[in-house]
């Protein structure tokens, strides 16, 4: 356990160095969130009745999404892992007395958390003070906020567990940038990255809400905004727990198998 904590700490300290990049990211995400919200408000004006969430809920959804982008978006890959596999440096990794799955898992979680911490606060600060209808609000009550925190942690776990599957698949394909792009795009769409799940047509929505993708950003963002509350929130968190366990188990087993067969090419 201590070793994993060390991995986490090293990675965290490494990522937190890039403050200028984070500042540029903050401005970008702020502008992006603002445009998203203007788009939703254009639709809201067309027909408030057809809007499946309250407007305040979508405002909170978008701001939290922009603030915690690094936690929940699949496309923040850990490029070092791909390189390790492609260059053969994996041989050193395997020589270490540390479970590789756990190590990579910690590393990914650390990078995402560090990136997120750098960016989230300034974005949230601005989102809370801008005047007008686009201002962000606190969640309905403290209980809901705790549920959000729990759900956010689980969601991060599910996202990382999913990307582990993609890393492991690199053992077999070596280079598949196209696959990676495709996986990230489809997953983020199904997780409500483009349009929140309540806006999906009912039939599609029912199916998607059972998948592991709904256990990603969809859940914490909607819990924070109050779109999911009470028993639904508890059920949602249960679903997240289930998918986290399932994905970690599959990934871990698959990794054991892949590592037994892995051939490091060249010296």
């Amino acid at each position, binding site marked *: 356990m201590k070793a994993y904590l060390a991995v986490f700490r090293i990675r965290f300290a490494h990522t937190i160095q890039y403050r200028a990049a984070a500042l540029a990211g903050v401005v970008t995400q702020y502008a992006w969130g603002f*445009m998203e919200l203007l788009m939703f408000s254009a*639709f809201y004006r067309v027909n408030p009745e057809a809007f499946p969430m309250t407007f305040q809920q979508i405002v909170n959804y978008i701001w939290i999404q922009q603030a915690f982008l690094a936690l929940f978006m699949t496309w923040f890959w850990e490029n070092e892992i791909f390189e390790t596999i492609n260059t053969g440096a994996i041989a050193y990794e395997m020589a270490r007395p540390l479970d590789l799955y756990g190590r990579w898992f910690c590393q990914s979680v650390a990078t995402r958390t560090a990136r997120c911490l750098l960016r989230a606060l300034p974005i949230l600060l601005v989102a809370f003070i801008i005047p007008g209808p686009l201002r962000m609000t606190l969640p309905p009550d403290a209980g809901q906020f705790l549920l959000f925190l729990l759900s956010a942690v689980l969601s991060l776990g599910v996202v990382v567990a999913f990307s582990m599957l993609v890393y492991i698949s690199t053992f077999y394909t070596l280079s598949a940038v*196209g696959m990676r792009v495709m996986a990230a795009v489809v997953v983020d769409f199904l997780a409500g990255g483009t349009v929140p799940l309540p806006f999906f047509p009912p039939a599609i929505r029912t199916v998607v809400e059972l998948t592991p993708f709904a256990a990603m950003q969809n859940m914490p963002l909607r819990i924070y905004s109050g779109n999911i509350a009470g028993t639904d929130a508890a059920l949602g968190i249960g679903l997240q727990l289930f998918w986290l366990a399932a994905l970690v188990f599959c990934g871990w087993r698959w990794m054991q198998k892949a590592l037994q067969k892995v051939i490091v090419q060249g010296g």
Partner: protein
Amino acid sequence: MKLYLKYLSIHVRSSMQYKVSFALLTLGQFMVSFTALLGLWFMMNRFHTVAGFALPEVLIGFSVVLTAFSIAETVARAFDVFPVIISNGEFDRMMMRPRGLIFQVLAAKMEFSRMGRLVQAAAMLAYAIPASGIVWTPDKILTLVLMIVCGAVVFGCLFLIYAAITFFTIEGLEFMNVLTDGGREFGRYPFAIYGREVLKFLTYVVPLALFQYYPLLYLIGRETGKFYMFLPLVSLLFVFPAYGFWRIGLRNYKSTGS
């Protein structure tokens, strides 16, 4: 021009060496814009119109932006990876050669996998052109062509500015993504839906609306003045500040050393 075609054929052949990888990358690019379309469709399905535009009309605007962006990105991809060209010294080598710098940078890299998006843009046009109920007189066809061509130039200019910033910062500036990728993403809808301030910005500062929103009004017959038809040409003025900025950057450029 002949030299450019030669480079073009080299790039085509080199990307065809890895056919599977190329196909997957193209498919990946296609999926990126396809999910954007799916999201748009979900929204339009629920609300039917936005700011008075129906689905086919929105789709015309979207496909113009997507086509223009894909053309610009295929041709001017090198500006996108300009930080690499600068930091590995490739640019210093280019300055030694007796050819235009912009030409050389353009020729250094072309990314054909971006064509995946063109397929989708064409499909959307194929649906929207008859479904929009527009009577396609020659002047309307000309308008559509102007929109796409001028749009590609404007996006190209944005890439050029992005590269010029690199002269000062060495690293790429993430904020420019709001204008390039953001222009593509938010160009799904006619730019007017984002409110008056954003529209003003996209008219007078970064002229994305000049080749999308205003001529679209002319296409669907909401505005009949010929003025709207030729607004895309006005957006070409953006070339001057973009090129000027590039020149300033170039004058300030000091090699990164090796």
